[in-house]
């Protein structure tokens, strides 16, 4: 048994004897995820069922100055739910799994943290609605994805999943419940954060260090009846970038993404494998949804014009035929098949991590060339993805990095590649998302001191005892 028996007893007093434990083998199950982040055992795991129980646990953590880590599925690949400090409580929120309401007219859903992509997908589909399903496992938490700036299959049209948040209920680190957005004014109205001050910013992107989000409203757009996936290939990222720049300008794709040859393999080759000489280095897909055949026709016409323009300018761009499974993987989300397990890490086994970043598109090529060197020198596949975000020419730039967790030296090799890649990225103006602690050091080394101080001041203000996921922001 780990931990202080008195704290365990108090936790059991809040949630019931069977819903809190200090058994070491259970602590072990919470000590790792699929990332390179080093294991650390918590001392307690507790399974609250509602916000009231969350409040009591938070108050207990304050009273005993015990670190508290919110957890749902543990599927992030930044080690965000692995404790940094000794004697931590992991608060597993998976029992809070209610879809409270789906407002079909206003197109939003109110959900608890334990609602998985699979669970919500079933209910939304019945109503002709969708969400930005990521390529993660169907078991992953919708709420956790949204508040950690996750992305999904509709990022080109609607933006990040955090941008789909319409309201929020939070248990603050000091135990008070707060609502932000329209639900703060009218209990049953979860449609919008605006025009109120964007207080959701205190809890979004903070990696569980500023409170426990117990409910969110999320925008759930309609599923358009028409869809076509257009695919292209180029010899260089430079050519692919120019194509994506033009396509991105039209804002016609729900998802506009390109992947390096290594990422287009199923799974990612591990260790590094040479690309066949005749294979294009980059492949792209653009998912074009439309409400009428005419709308789709117009979008396809714009795509064809883009291809013509690029080819006329001397690009190596070619229109390609995607394998059927790959085409389906673009729209049939959430999916067990395209999740990080099968496509990405199956050959390596046991783990995957990334330098996952938001980066201006005009820096992609410079970063890619350096990343390719870093990865190949470490005998790892440079399996890189770039995605345009809504209405802009910046987007995701990330290298999916499989690793074999059975062998610590291989994990360390992957970690080194990722950190080196991040250094290059930061120097080129990119920003990592869902950053593990190793990343924060690199960020803060480069960041404006005023920004670093503000982060710490906000954290100190909102969490005076520094109990929420302490250490995840490096200095707090």
């Amino acid at each position, binding site marked *: 048994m780990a931990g202080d028996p008195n704290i365990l007893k108090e936790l059991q007093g809040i949630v019931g004897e069977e819903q809190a434990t200090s058994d070491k083998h259970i602590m072990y199950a919470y000590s790792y995820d699929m990332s390179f982040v080093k294991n650390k055992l918590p001392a307690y795991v507790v399974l609250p069922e509602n916000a009231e129980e969350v409040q009591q646990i938070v108050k207990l953590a304050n009273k005993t100055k015990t670190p508290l880590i919110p957890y749902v599925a543990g599927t992030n690949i930044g080690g965000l739910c692995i404790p940094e400090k000794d004697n931590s409580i992991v608060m597993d929120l998976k029992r809070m799994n209610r879809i409270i309401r789906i407002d079909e007219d206003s197109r939003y859903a109110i959900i608890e943290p334990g609602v998985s992509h699979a669970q919500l997908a079933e209910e939304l589909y019945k109503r002709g609605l969708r969400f930005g399903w990521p390529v*993660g496992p169907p*078991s992953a938490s919708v709420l956790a994805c949204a508040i950690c700036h996750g992305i999904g299959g509709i990022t080109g049209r609607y933006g990040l999943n955090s941008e789909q948040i319409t309201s929020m209920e939070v248990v603050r680190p000091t135990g008070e419940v707060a609502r932000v957005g329209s639900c703060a004014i009218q209990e049953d109205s979860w449609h919008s954060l605006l025009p109120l001050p964007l207080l959701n910013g205190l809890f979004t992107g903070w990696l569980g260090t500023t409170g426990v989000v117990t409910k969110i409203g999320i925008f759930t757009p309609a599923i358009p009846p028409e869809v076509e996936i257009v695919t292209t290939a180029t010899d260089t990222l430079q050519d692919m970038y120019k194509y994506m720049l033009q396509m991105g300008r039209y804002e016609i794709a729900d998802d506009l993404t390109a992947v390096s040859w290594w990422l287009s393999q199923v799974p990612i080759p591990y260790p590094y494998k040479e690309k066949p000489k005749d294979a294009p280095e980059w492949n792209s897909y653009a998912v074009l949804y439309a409400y009428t055949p005419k709308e789709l026709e117009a979008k396809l016409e714009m795509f064809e014009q883009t291809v013509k323009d690029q080819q006329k300018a001397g690009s190596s761009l070619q229109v390609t035929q995607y394998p059927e499974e790959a085409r389906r993987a673009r729209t049939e989300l959430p999916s067990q098949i395209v999740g990080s397990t099968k496509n990405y890490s199956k*050959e390596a086994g046991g783990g995957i991590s990334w330098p996952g970043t938001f980066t201006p598109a005009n820096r992609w090529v410079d970063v890619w060339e350096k990343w390719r060197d870093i990865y190949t020198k470490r005998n790892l596949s440079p399996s890189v993805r770039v995605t345009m975000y809504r209405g802009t020419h910046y987007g995701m730039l990330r290298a999916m990095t499989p690793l074999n967790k059975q*062998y610590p030296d291989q*994990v360390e090799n992957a970690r080194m590649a990722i950190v080196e890649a991040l250094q290059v990225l930061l120097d080129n103006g990119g920003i990592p998302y869902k950053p593990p602690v190793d990343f924060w050091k690199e960020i803060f080394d480069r960041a404006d001191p005023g920004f670093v101080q503000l982060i710490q001041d906000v954290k100190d203000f909102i969490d005076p005892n520094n109990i929420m996921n302490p250490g995840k922001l490096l200095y707090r």
Partner: protein
Amino acid sequence: MEWNFRNIDKEAELNLKHFFWKCTACGTCRSGYTFGPPPTFRKICPQGQKFGFEGFFASKGKAALARWMTSDPILKNEFEWTPEYLKTLYTCTGCAGCQNQCQIDFKPHIIDTIEAMRAKAVQDGVGPLKDHNVLVQSMRNNDNPYTGPRGMRAKWMKGLDVKDINKEDSSVLYFAGCTPAYNAPIRQLAVKTVSVFNKIGVDFGTLGKKEVCCGSTVLRLGAREEFKRVAEKNLEIFKNLHDERGVDTIVTSCAGCYRCILEDYEIADDFKDYMDGITIKHTADFIYDLYKEGKFEPKNEIDMKVTYHDPCHLGRHVKDWKVDWDGSQQWKGSYLDVEDKGTFEQPRELIKAIPGIKYEEMRRNRNNSYCCGSGGGVKTAFPDWAAENAALRVEEAEQTGAEKIITCCPFCHANLNDGAKVRNSQLRTIDLVELLDEAL
């Protein structure tokens, strides 16, 4: 006879350790999900639903247990058996619901990993659990897990016209199994099987008192020595019956016997020598084949709405895994594909062939069926929880409007009826043969 069991800590290439370290902890195993369209989401892990913590949940949890048991290479922990660890290990029903979801190289090896950990517990003298030991001791003393005397095994046949295959020739051995023999509420399963066989005109015989447990129950607990003893006895009996009585088909009533003889006996070095010329079938398959050959037609109308519960050992447990052991196709140990050999459609077709029957599927079915909660020794050591879990399945069946649940496994049969009592439901479970007997 040599048995090629897989061990949790064997240091060989492509051992179980290689595979449970392939788990990415992604949690895909935790719920039954298909994109569709429409997408379907189903809770699939009884143990995880009940106990909640990671570690209890699905194959992700079992990989964690195995890593902890064999020492994590970073933490370098020294493993110690604790009552809590044993509880986590033995509250898994081994239903393979998680296995059906997993997409990585661990997939084909999930059940083997669970059973190898239990075998290690037995080897170290800490397993199985106290209540299980009664079962294992009974196997040792009586060749059955129910503490019933050997002499009582054939009691269910009293008054029935059944050929004694020890004395008379027949091509079909009806292997009734221990549950109908020793569990009175399930006795009708064997009685009605005989009745159906007689109505159809099957020439068959039974071993009577000489029948020996297949060994499934003790194998699931990790008691491999006891399993080997009864399995070797059975293989010798089967071979003798083939050579001396002309037996070429063994028909089992029990999904557990079926899976055990079909899949577990196969790891014996001499399996092929002993079973050459013998086919193992479950009654559902056997009767279905006769139906498709036009040997009978259900005639009697039954005005009833029913649903069907897939037993794990008859359905998703019966698979032919394709693994690239030598790395010639992908990489060493990679999971390539799976061929479903489970019995899913046969019982459904037989049910629907009965005039007047109305059939409604439960939300969770076939490979994504929900375990009744009886398997893996759970019913023996945690009977209240097993029944509580069965009550969830009965509730799901109630939602179909069915008047009866049909199944093909005596364990599911008994446990689902216990589950009905837990929720004061009038919905009862019967075996497929009981329904067919009424229709013939």
